[in-house]
């Protein structure tokens, strides 16, 4: 069912309460998600974005209940990943000649995905406009936020920024707006989205936000392509992005470990004792990487000023779960964070050394060579770990 946002703008997307994983298994979505599409009905009618492919038929069926599809004059595609462009084929079957406004790269991505023969593309650049009557759409290219084709569309008159994935969150709600949901849940999901998806492109976020501020747009609402609409104080999420794109950290040290026979866990907990003893104010958190959701751990890394990564040495290397976290952290390019490694071992004890090398490659500033202990740590071994934690706390304070 369409949801009216203003006199002229309606939400016509799909709320997905069932979604638990996104991008294959790359991203967990504990609060579901939505694929937001918007319909602007002025003297001319424009549809902004569509929904994920599995919902293409129901999207078109519901859109037909809102409007005679032939009355749609323009389709605007801000970004063409399948969760937004997935219903295009179904829609274009009904209205094949309708012009699709997108960036040049957007056209090539649509062509690469759906191989259309005869769709009518109109390539737009920053500053190009589309007059709809009382309202005008202005396009703002936003490459790599988060794909090369991404653009924002700004509707003057109604003063709405359609930002696509930027400022989005995987967050299902029937009530649409940011002030109608639990704020802690919302802000966690907004930050998780940034920490897992947007962070690699922080340099582009910084540039684009400066450009947006420089344009002096009146922004009454930010309508992203996932999650809630920022209606109450929409500037708050822009301010958050300014914080997040600039080597964001809180006073937190996160210890991420895996353990086979509890020895590496005991080491991690002894290190945590040492950190907290020296620094009462720092938040210390421990996560077993094979037990706790990987994307939640990455969000905790994003919040941290420093991390410790622990793994037992297994088959002369480190564990599967730790390897996964390290590879994701490398790709996400966290900046301005310190790190070190630890672990228990039996004979070859190379895991901390290998983890340290990987952390360095991933852009972390290495605090020291880490600590390793053979077999099951005894009281003295654990005291050493606590001492190590104290030194780590001092070095990262």
């Amino acid at each position: 069912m369409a949801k009216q946002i203003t006199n002229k703008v309606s939400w016509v997307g799909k709320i997905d309460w069932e979604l638990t994983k996104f991008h294959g298994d790359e991203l967990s979505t504990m609060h579901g998600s939505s694929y937001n599409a918007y319909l602007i009905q002025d003297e001319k009618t424009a549809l902004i974005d569509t929904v994920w492919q599995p919902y293409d038929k129901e999207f078109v069926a519901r859109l037909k209940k809102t409007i005679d599809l032939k009355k749609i004059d323009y389709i605007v595609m801000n970004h063409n990943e399948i969760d937004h462009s997935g219903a295009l084929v179904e829609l274009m079957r009904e209205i094949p000649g309708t012009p699709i406004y997108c960036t040049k790269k957007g056209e090539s991505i649509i062509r690469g995905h759906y191989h259309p023969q005869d769709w009518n593309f109109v390539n737009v650049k920053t500053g190009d406009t589309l007059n709809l009557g009382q309202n005008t759409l202005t396009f703002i290219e936003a490459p790599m936020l988060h794909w090369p084709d991404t653009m924002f569309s700004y509707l003057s008159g109604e003063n709405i920024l359609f930002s696509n994935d930027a400022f989005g969150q995987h967050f299902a709600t029937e009530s649409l707006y940011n002030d109608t949901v639990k704020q802690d849940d919302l802000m966690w999901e907004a930050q998780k989205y940034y920490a897992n998806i947007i962070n690699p492109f922080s340099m582009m976020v910084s540039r684009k936000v400066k450009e947006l501020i420089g344009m002096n747009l009146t922004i009454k609402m930010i309508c992203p392509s996932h999650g809630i609409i920022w209606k109450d104080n929409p500037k708050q999420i822009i301010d958050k992005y300014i914080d997040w794109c600039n080597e964001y950290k809180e006073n937190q040290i996160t210890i991420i470990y895996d353990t086979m026979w509890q020895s590496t866990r005991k080491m991690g907990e002894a290190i945590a004792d040492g950190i907290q003893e020296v620094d009462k104010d720092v938040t210390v958190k421990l996560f077993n990487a094979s037990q706790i959701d990987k994307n939640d751990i990455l969000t905790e890394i994003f919040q941290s000023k420093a991390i410790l990564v622990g793994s037992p040495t297994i088959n002369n290397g480190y564990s599967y779960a730790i390897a996964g976290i390290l590879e994701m952290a490398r790709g996400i390019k966290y900046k301005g964070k310190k790190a070190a490694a630890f672990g228990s071992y039996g004979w070859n004890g190379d895991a901390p050394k290998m983890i340290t090398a990987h952390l360095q490659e991933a852009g972390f500033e290495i605090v020291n060579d880490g600590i390793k202990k053979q077999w099951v740590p005894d009281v003295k071994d654990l005291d050493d770990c606590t001492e190590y934690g104290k030194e780590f706390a001092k070095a990262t304070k």
Partner: protein
Amino acid sequence: MEKYVCDVCDYVYDPAVGDPDTGIAPGTSFEDLPDDWTCPVCGVTKDDFQVQK
């Protein structure tokens, strides 16, 4: 020295700035970047860059 723009993501390589994250010092021309240097934003190689007009 000329600035170069990434075809994929529009990142601009500015020789005056270099690419400190990968150890490229300020004052390094685009031509002098190592062959295996990649765009710090989207990861494509030097072949996907063009002189900024």
